[in-house]
């Protein structure tokens, strides 16, 4: 796993509640993140970003000297890094405004630490994928940028659809990705009626990545719901 590489990314945490900052820092540190900066206000956040450009920012919306949305726009003038909002503003309109201004994710307090960690990792994987390429599975390795599977020393190429499917599954590794979400990832806006094609593609992927495609261990079916990619 190359998660240690992702966990060394510089994360900027901005919240006016010092005790919450302490807690999030401890959650991140416990999970192995090493480069964490904190700020309690817009002013402090800009100063911190000047010292070291963050590679991910976790922002609160309500800050004593401004709001998180405009802070995000200000910070992004320097560098286009991903932003996750962690806020008590749970209204739909706040969420829409967050996504509208370019947020990568939006978590409403209170949150489960596990959920926060998962979402941070998902963003980091998505944004810094070119430096993180080889996915180690139980019986093979997947090299997404090269669109190939390495199994028992041989290189097996992936088709475009298989690549899209594996990418979507990998982005949500360890979680169920529904049939509908997979179809949408591969066939776009009108993904209905492709369930049978999806099954065919999944079977072909299994032939490439599994030791025994009839008893999959890496790409498992969750009956009626979807599929899950297990990355050990």
């Amino acid at each position: 796993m190359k998660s240690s590489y992702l966990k060394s990314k510089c994360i900027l945490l901005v919240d006016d509640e010092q005790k919450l900052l302490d807690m999030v820092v401890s959650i991140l540190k416990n999970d192995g993140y090493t480069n964490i900066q904190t700020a309690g206000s817009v002013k402090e956040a800009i100063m911190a970003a000047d010292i070291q450009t963050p590679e991910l920012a976790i922002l609160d919306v309500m800050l004593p000297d401004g709001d998180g949305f405009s802070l995000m726009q200000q910070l992004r003038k320097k560098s286009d890094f991903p932003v996750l909002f962690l806020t008590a503003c749970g209204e739909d309109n706040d969420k829409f405004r967050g996504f509208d201004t370019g947020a990568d994710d939006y978590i409403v307090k209170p949150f489960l630490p596990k959920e926060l960690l998962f979402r941070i990792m998902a963003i980091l994987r998505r944004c810094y994928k070119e430096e993180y390429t080889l996915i180690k599975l139980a019986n093979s390795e997947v090299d997404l940028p090269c669109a190939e599977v390495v199994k028992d020393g041989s290189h097996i190429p992936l088709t475009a659809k298989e690549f899209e499917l594996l990418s979507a599954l990998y982005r949500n590794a360890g979680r169920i990705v529904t049939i509908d979400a997979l179809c949408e990832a591969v066939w776009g806006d009108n993904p209905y009626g492709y369930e049978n094609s999806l099954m065919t593609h999944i079977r072909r992927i299994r032939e490439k990545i599994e030791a025994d495609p009839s008893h999959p261990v890496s790409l498992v079916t969750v009956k009626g719901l979807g599929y899950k990619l297990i990355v050990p």
Partner: protein
Amino acid sequence: MKSAPKLIRHFASTGMISSILLIIFNIILVFTILDSYNNTSYPYETAEKAAKSLKRLESGYVLSDNMARKLESENIWAVFIDNHTLEVVWNTDNLPDTVPEKYTASGIAELTIGYIDGYPAFTGRAKDGLMVLGYPKDSLWKHMSPSWDLNFISDLPMILLILLVTNILVIFIIYMVTSSRLVNAINPIINGIQALSSGGPVRVNETGLLSEVAANINRTSEFLQSQNYYLHRKETARANWIAGISHDIRTPLSMVMGYACQLMEDINLTEEEQQKATVIVKQSRRIKNLINDLNLASKLEYNMQPLKLADENIVAVVRQTVADFINMDISGKYEFELEAGIPRALCNVNIDKELIKRAINNLIWNSINHNEQGCKILASITADNKKKDHVTVEISDDGTGATDRQIYKINNAPHYMFRDESTTEQRHGLGLLIVRQIISVHGGTVIAGHSPCGGFQVKFTLPLPKK
């Protein structure tokens, strides 16, 4: 506005009926009055009768006793003029002296159509002479030139008819003009009252016949508007207050949850201590759900939650909600299953996806909260293939379930949040209330019951768009 034409129709028919009745009434009145004046018999007829009842005997002319009495009683005098001599050959005793005893042809002609010395004269023919009756002066009026154009007489029925119809028409027009004026005055008042009932602001012009009523309507409208304004302000304030409280609870609760989660996984703690942390996490999550629910319930109740409707595949929505649950990895105690026996054509519903996900979420949480020992949770989506007017989503479990009485209460009793009196009965959460509110704004229904696999079940329907 249907009242004005109805009113005009009513006025028109009343006008028509009353004019006809008026004409009939007048005719009856005229005939009655005429009748009351004509209590004496007709003079010409009496003259004819008198002529016939005069007998010529050898001793001279003799009038029958009956006729003599009648003439006397009515103070009528009579003379009988001989055809050949034009002289009076018989007369009653009461003949005034001024009445001549000899006549010329022109004198006869004159008395036939007119008067003799101011006495209205009437003639009756006999075989050999002319009976002349003289009525008392000023008792009768005679028309002296009784000649008419024959065309006029032949057209008379038509003329009378036209006269009648014109009269009715004139009365009708007068009636209509006055009533339409009244309707015009009433119309804005009716419109105003109707607008009042729909709750909108009303402004009726305060002029004309009914200005006082218009002013009252305007005052009522202002009163209702101000009441609505204050009510709305109160509701908004209440919803904002709840939103504010939930906002302020979120940050401290984050810390409770966050640290408890850390303690739960802290290997330095004893198992008992970790167990205590688990309870804190679980209860914090309940508080989190509760504040989310409270906020949404108050917004739905006060119509402050805008619906973002879009065409969605209901199967995909349910599937995503269930998958999110499994992905949350709450614990291995709950087994999930999804059944979607529904043709693709019946999957599309017009819904606010986030709200429907929330409803399904609440139902699943409900099953989890009531079955701490773990259970199997089944989500199923079905459609009525014949009617094709709705889809049904069922969330059921094989857990402890509920008694018939509890289910009856869930389905029928109002939620304690919306009762006017407090209750000592056990309170259940807001989960089901929100499900009901969400499904209701989508035009569907919710019903709780026993699950076929032994536990609790909630079914809700969503209408399919009409084709």
